[in-house]
């Protein structure tokens, strides 16, 4: 029997992976060949999707990007035996783009069948959870603190400290909430993990529950991710069946339950207090802090809120030790970051590497410049609230503090590349428009400021009192930064000001 892998990830499916999988199965059947098609997650080399892999005694050999029309010639060439073909890529794990990465959080994504519990266990699943059960919560939280892991959702708060706060809170009920409301344009790592390695995230949430004393978990995902939600719901069912969830987790006499809730198309619900309100069924209105959600979160109870990537990294940290994870990284940014390369890039996808590499290494190295072949002009790092960095600024190291120092942010690790046809005044206007459309409306600087921002940029672009309106826009940015309740209003000025600073000429046309 030969095993052929064709990704089930939505990105791969969006350009034909389902059709390719079907064509391979049909042709194998027609030729009487014993072939099993496994639908794995994606390796994250999206320019090679659909990437077909064949298991051979030399390892898993890749062919890509495969279209339905290529399937006949793959069979004719003998790809089931790893034969040569114009689309042959060799051993997938040895492709330099992939082999040079440090895959920790993403170590199983693309490798395993996402919903095959035994396959997952064979690749190290459950090691972290078993350690919590034997070693206890205090030791696990100590490991997490030692690892230096910071929240991967964007804020970068030390995860271990947050866990310790929730663990110390006294309450009859505590919750663990996984924030999977990945709304930032240019980010898709949460989705790929949900679709490609859901059991690892469930394991991380159970570890979190057992460590902080919570018995109920929720994952808040996006309605825009229908496939991820279906996969994750199926994974939850299997996890109950395998006693990773339930009233007696792995026979240890402890309880943890988990349910998925879908959002309803509101970017602001990625902000943690807004997410909690939405989980309670309410409008996603941001809350003032304090009180911290760690003390008064979901339904007023102590709640641990962490991002998908944070929680999915926990099992590896607990299994291998905090020191091992923290050994990689740069200054106060420890471990690896899952960068997501997108927009106008030749080679888009997932690059997981220790913090501290430069943006240039990502954009010119891994991404290979633009897909259009034109020069890179601007790179937006960290989502719609992140700064636009000019081509001359690509030598900045990617770590939390270095990015703040240039008035930017790492955010959730999204890197969106634009070529020289981009109009940066239009991008600045979009930043304000996005804020006006997605603001929860609770605080005035964000709700009204963003609308005034759009109007003011329109005046500048059409040459109305340009100098006065530029001064007004600068004042407005200061007000939004200092006066907004949450990151939505206070960070929207980042892309606007970076466009004004580095691309002033675009505002003078």
């Amino acid at each position, binding site marked *: 029997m030969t095993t052929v892998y064709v990704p089930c990830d*939505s*990105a791969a*499916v*969006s*350009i034909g992976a389902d059709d390719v999988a079907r064509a391979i199965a049909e042709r194998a059947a027609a030729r009487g060949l014993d072939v099993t098609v496994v639908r794995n997650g994606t390796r994250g080399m*999206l*320019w090679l*999707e659909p990437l077909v892999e064949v298991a051979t005694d030399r390892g898993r050999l890749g062919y890509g990007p495969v279209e339905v029309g290529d399937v006949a010639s793959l069979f004719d060439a003998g790809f089931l035996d790893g034969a040569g073909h114009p689309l042959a890529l060799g051993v997938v794990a040895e492709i330099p783009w992939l082999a040079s990465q440090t895959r920790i959080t993403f170590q199983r994504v693309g490798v395993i069948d996402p919903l095959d519990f035994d396959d997952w266990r064979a690749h190290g699943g459950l090691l972290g959870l078993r350690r919590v059960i034997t070693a206890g919560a205090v030791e696990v939280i100590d490991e997490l603190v030692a690892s230096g892991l910071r929240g991967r959702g964007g804020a970068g708060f030390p995860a271990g400290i947050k866990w310790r706060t929730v663990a110390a809170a006294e309450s009859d009920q505590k919750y663990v909430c996984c924030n999977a409301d*990945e*709304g*930032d*344009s*240019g*980010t*898709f790592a*949460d*989705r790929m993990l949900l679709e490609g390695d859901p059991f690892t995230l469930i394991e991380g949430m159970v570890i979190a529950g057992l460590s902080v004393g919570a018995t109920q978990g929720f994952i808040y995902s*996006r*309605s*825009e*991710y*229908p*496939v991820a939600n279906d996969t994750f719901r199926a994974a939850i069912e299997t996890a109950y069946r395998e006693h990773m969830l339930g009233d007696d987790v792995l026979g240890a006499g402890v309880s943890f339950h988990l*349910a998925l*809730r*879908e*959002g*309803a*198309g*509101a*970017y602001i619900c990625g902000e943690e207090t807004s997410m909690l309100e*939405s989980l*309670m*069924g*309410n*409008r*996603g209105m941001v809350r003032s802090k304090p009180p911290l959600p760690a003390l008064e979160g979901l339904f007023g109870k102590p709640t641990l809120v962490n991002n998908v990537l944070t929680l999915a990294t926990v099992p590896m940290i607990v299994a291998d030790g905090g020191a091992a994870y923290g050994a990689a990284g740069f200054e106060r940014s420890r471990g690896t970051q899952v960068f*997501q*390369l*997108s*927009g*106008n*890039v030749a080679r*888009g*996808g997932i690059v997981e590497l220790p913090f501290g590499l430069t943006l240039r290494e990502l954009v010119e190295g891994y991404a290979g410049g633009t*897909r259009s072949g034109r020069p890179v002009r601007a790179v*937006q790092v960290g989502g*719609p609230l992140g700064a636009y960095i000019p081509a001359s600024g690509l030598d900045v190291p990617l770590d939390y503090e270095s990015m703040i120092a240039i008035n930017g942010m790492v955010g959730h690790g*999204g890197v*969106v*590349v*634009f*070529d020289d046809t*981009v109009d940066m005044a239009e*991008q600045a206007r*979009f930043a304000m428009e*996005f804020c006006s*459309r*997605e603001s*929860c409306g609770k605080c005035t600087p964000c709700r009204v400021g963003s609308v005034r921002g759009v109007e003011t940029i329109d005046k500048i672009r059409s040459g109305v009192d340009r100098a006065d309106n530029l001064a007004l826009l600068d004042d407005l940015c200061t007000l939004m930064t200092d006066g907004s309740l949450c990151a939505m209003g206070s960070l929207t000025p980042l892309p606007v000001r970076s466009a004004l600073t580095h691309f002033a000429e675009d505002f003078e046309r």
Partner: protein
Amino acid sequence: MAARHPDWSSDAGQQVLDALPAGDRLVLPALQALQHAFGHVHDEAVPLVASLVNVSVAEVHGVLTFYHDLRRTPPASVTVILCTAEACQANGSRALVSEVEESLAKLGGRTSDGAVEVAEVFCLGNCALGPAALVNGRLCGRLDLDRLVAAVGAARAEVGA
């Protein structure tokens, strides 16, 4: 994914609400369940949800109008949701939107036969393979007008519209 839903009636709506598990007897999950069942949230459903959750009609209205997904009118047979956020902008989504508006329908509008509606969304998580769209819930990547029209045609054929 075919957008075919039963007609709304208060009795049918109440049945959907009665079937909600205890943990989902909250405003947003109740509205989502109704929309899943009927394709939209009928005005008559608002007091039913208020009664179920024991909140005011105003609070239900507030939730219904807060979330972009929730709609108060039935959807077309085929829905096209185009991503217009930054990563897709970098790959030409603005030009694609212009072409779609010329040849198919305006954003927020429908084709002249009413069978296809077009809307926009900020990010579908297919940022490295943009421009992207959801066509009746199915994610499409590396779109140009031809590929999008083909996807819409396939969706129409599938639902017989």
